[in-house]
């Protein structure tokens, strides 16, 4: 049954593209909306009838097993929420019906690819879904066909190609060693042999995933791609694509395939800290709203990887919770930037000013998003950061914990600077006739802000239901 999440969008796209005329193109929006909402509801309710972990065979040659655990649920929820947000933003930024139709096709393809990534149980199928997601993303970034969009898409494509090579090479080596592509078989093989080549494969695999996740120093493509993409695509990329393709796969690989090798842990701690610092410092000086958010994204992803590097159950639970929170608050901030972009025509922060007077909903929700990103209680971002910091402290990584706290001050600094430049203060000249963003963007930002506040205030129960089971998965 979980494979329905793959098949329904897939066949949906096929049917929508049959030459039945305009009606299908109009229906595409509602179809996509329904698919995402169903995915969100299924992920929240954990319907056992739907998620029963039976093995499904696509055909005799090519076996694909899907299985869903607590971690996948969180990811499926994020995928549904962010795709829904992207769809809503699209509604208010792309108006031509043919363009819309193309966009929806690609969005559903990307979303389906990510759902596949988080449910597969063998390494080769994971690679296929990674590629599906990546290719849909390239086209989405280039969607506006201007020179910046093409440049951003090109850089992403080049570095993604490098990542694909690394992942494929690692897959080949592991396949040779284990004789099977399934996670459990490879994990067994790694456990049994003491081959140096396995270590190389691990290194290649992790590096490939880190490129996909945009960690420093593999991050070069990320600010250009996020900054150049159209608003709806930035939301999707920053909110979930890099997280599902790079970060989820990393923790899945560590837990199910590679094991928490001491070298990898040390590496992740170091890379996480570097990412936090480089991303935060680079974000300070940015003049463009979206580029600033892109660097901030690198910095926040650093926290998640830092949690993985610590590798205690608490740290991993905190990291996954931060992944969820990051999806929500970064999407929210990108939705806010979309609101500014649609009304102002640019995301140059120096041109904006005092927009909160004219766009109260956007202004308010951006404050919620920024404070959650900076880790201010009682918003949900606070809880995940504090869990990561506490876990680092308990594990004896005192300096990493201190750095994480210090960097969250920098986070607050650049996000507050953004608030001051864009939303607070006096209304900038020439903006007297600005209006609040359109309905879809407003609805998306209110929904995400409500999630941030809700998860923050109801943290104890959210933690018990959603997050703590993830930590328990990793006790071995």
């Amino acid at each position, binding site marked *: 049954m979980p494979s329905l999440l793959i098949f329904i969008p897939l066949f949906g796209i096929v049917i929508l593209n049959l030459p039945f005329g305009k009606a299908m193109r109009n229906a595409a929006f509602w179809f996509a909306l329904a698919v995402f909402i169903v995915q969100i509801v299924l992920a929240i309710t954990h319907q056992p009838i739907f998620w029963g972990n039976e093995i499904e065979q696509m055909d005799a040659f090519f076996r694909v097993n899907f299985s869903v655990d607590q971690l996948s649920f969180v990811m499926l929820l994020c995928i549904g929420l962010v795709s829904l947000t992207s769809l809503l933003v699209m509604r208010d930024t792309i108006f031509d019906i043919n363009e819309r139709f193309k966009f929806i096709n690609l969005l559903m393809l990307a979303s389906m690819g990510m759902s596949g990534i988080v449910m597969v149980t063998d390494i080769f199928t994971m690679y296929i879904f990674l590629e599906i997601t990546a290719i849909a993303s390239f086209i989405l970034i280039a969607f506006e066909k201007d020179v910046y969009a093409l440049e951003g898409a090109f850089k992403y494509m*080049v*570095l993604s190609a490098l990542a694909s090579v690394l992942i494929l090479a690692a897959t080949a080596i592991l396949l040779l060693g284990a004789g099977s592509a399934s996670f459990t078989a490879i994990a067994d093989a790694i456990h049994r042999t003491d081959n*140096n080549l396995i*270590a190389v494969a691990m*290194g290649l695999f992790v590096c490939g995933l880190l490129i996909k996740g945009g960690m420093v*120093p593999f991050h070069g*493509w990320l600010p250009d791609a996020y900054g150049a993409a159209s608003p709806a695509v930035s939301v999707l990329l920053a909110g979930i694509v890099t997280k599902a393709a790079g970060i989820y796969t990393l923790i899945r690989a560590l837990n199910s395939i590679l094991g928490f090798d001491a070298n990898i842990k040390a*590496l992740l701690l170091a890379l996480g800290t570097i990412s936090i610092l*480089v991303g935060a410092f680079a974000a300070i000086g940015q003049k463009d709203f979206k580029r600033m958010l892109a660097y901030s994204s690198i910095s926040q992803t650093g926290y998640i990887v830092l949690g993985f590097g610590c590798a205690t159950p608490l740290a991993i639970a905190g990291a996954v919770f931060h992944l969820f929170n990051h999806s929500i608050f970064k999407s929210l901030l990108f939705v806010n930037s979309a609101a500014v972009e649609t009304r102002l025509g640019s995301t140059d922060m120096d041109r904006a000013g005092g927009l909160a007077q004219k766009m109260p909903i956007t202004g308010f929700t951006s404050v919620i998003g920024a404070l959650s990103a900076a880790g201010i209680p009682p918003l949900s971002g606070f809880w995940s950061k504090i869990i990561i910091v506490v876990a680092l402290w308990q594990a004896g990584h005192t300096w990493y914990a201190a750095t994480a706290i210090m960097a969250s001050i920098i986070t607050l*600094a650049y996000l507050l600077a953004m608030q001051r430049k864009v939303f607070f203060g006096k209304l900038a000249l020439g903006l007297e006739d600005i209006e609040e963003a359109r309905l879809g963007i407003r609805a998306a930002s209110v929904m995400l802000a409500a999630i941030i506040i809700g998860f923050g205030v109801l943290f104890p129960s959210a933690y018990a239901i959603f997050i703590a089971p993830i930590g328990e998965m990793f006790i071995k």
Partner: protein
Amino acid sequence: MMSSVLLALTIPFAASGVVLIIPNKPRALKEMLSLLAAFATLALSLSFYGRPASASFDWAGFGINLSFRVYNFSALLVIATSFFAAMLLMYSCVFMRGRENTKLFYSLILMSVGFVNGGLLADNLICLLFFWEALLFTTYGMIAIGKTNAFKTATKAFIIVGIGDIFMVVGAAICYNLAGTLRISELHIDSIGLGALAFVLLMIGALAKTGSMPFHSWIPDAATDAPLPFMAFAPASLDKVLGIYFLTRISLDIFRLHQESWASYTLMTIGGATIILAVMMALIQKDYKKLLSYHAISQAGYMILGIGSATPAGIVGGIFHMINNALYKSGLFLTAGSMEKQAGTTDLEKLGGMATRMPVTFACFVIMALSISGTPPFNGFFSKELIYDAAIERGTVFYLAAIAGSFLTAASFLKLGHAAFLGKASEIRPNIKEPPIIMLVPMIVITAACVLLGLRSAIPIRLILPVLNGYISAQEPLTDFAPNLSLIAITLVVLTCALLNHILGVIRTGSGLKAVDHIHYAPLLHSIYDKAEKGIFDPYNIGTGLVKIFSVGAAWCDKAIDRVYGSLIPTAAETVSFAIRKIHNGSYKTYILWSLAALFLVIIVMFNGLK
């Protein structure tokens, strides 16, 4: 029984909420509703007496729960609270007409009743603190409703009482630490070491609520700024009820105050000083309400003196006096309200000859003034005699303070009555007459209660006596307090002296208002009075002055720190940020090179580990 305990809170709270949301018109609707709720609470609380009960609900964990306990003492005081609330709401119905924010005022009064009842019935320290602190907000709100700039006074009250509350919170924390329980009925702590500190902290909280010195200075300010029913409600009755209740509980049940302990002497000293200093200030006031407000402070001194004496007579006297004071002090404030409503002013220089215009108000005033001065056979006489009895047992100096306070009280009320009701009829407003009957009824009921409690003083004393259970050992008789005839004689002599003093003063100056000028302008006192009038001795002013000095220093430090944060750190961050932005040159070749270089590093690390 469980649910009815909660009703003492829920009825006022619910009514308070409803009053706030119902429409402004018709006016009578919210008045009737508030009155109904107040009388319902009164009827309910009457049913509490003699039926001990308890109820407990889980709340926050860690031993913090909403637990309530009804027993004779708390039941008695809940009756008193509900009685005052009903009387004052009835009075306010007419008095507050034509003012703004009446809806909010009724709502706040009802809410305060709920909080006070909650505080009296609470059997958990945290629960009690919750209701206790909540009163801060209603107090703030009710004062701020008054004149346009009353919020300043409201802030003053908030800060002064709030500081007391902070001490109390710390005291409660120490109690929990020492005893391991938050249930008040199970708390028993020796007042040595940390226990002594806890006692002092809790005592400060109780004294601040009672309004004794040095936590008094907001009360006279509130007298001029806050709506008058508030004065009759909070500083005159409910604050005293709650403060003295808690002082009694900590002195008797939790810490077992001993007669020869330093804590007992401290309490008695505070009580004595409060009596004298506040009444001295009352003596020279030229405003009806302000004069009364200083008496509200001074009378608190008697109660603290009585309870601090740690003798049976003193404790019973202190509690009895608290109830008496709540009666006549709120009643006296109501007469001031009649004056304000009908004559338009409470300035004694403008008033005069009101006795013929408002005979009922005058009669009530006379009885309650006699009562507060401790004249037999009214209620104030009996409670004061008990306190004198206790004071002389513990030290002559305390007795002297108490009796001197009595003299000055009598003198100031002679002056007040003379200036307001007798003498030349003033013509500030034509056709001044009695206030409406609805305002008179509460006054008359309260006056009647004063007389009744005086004539049948044995009944209230018998009701209060069980408070001593468990504190005084069973051997000592708890039934009777033999009247000390020589003390009564002295009291009568002192009161006569006060009368003679007044007559002499009137003859000397020819005016009731200036009857005590010979004390006011006595050589040394004169300069002290001048300074006190300017607020130089006001602990609040001294405190705010100190805070100002501190804040100048802090601002200076802050500037230095600001320089570090304002220029040093941003410059450093900007430099790093600039360098990082520079190396992101936008060329995909660079980025691929970074990635490949990192890849090789990673593979080396995978082989050798990070060293």
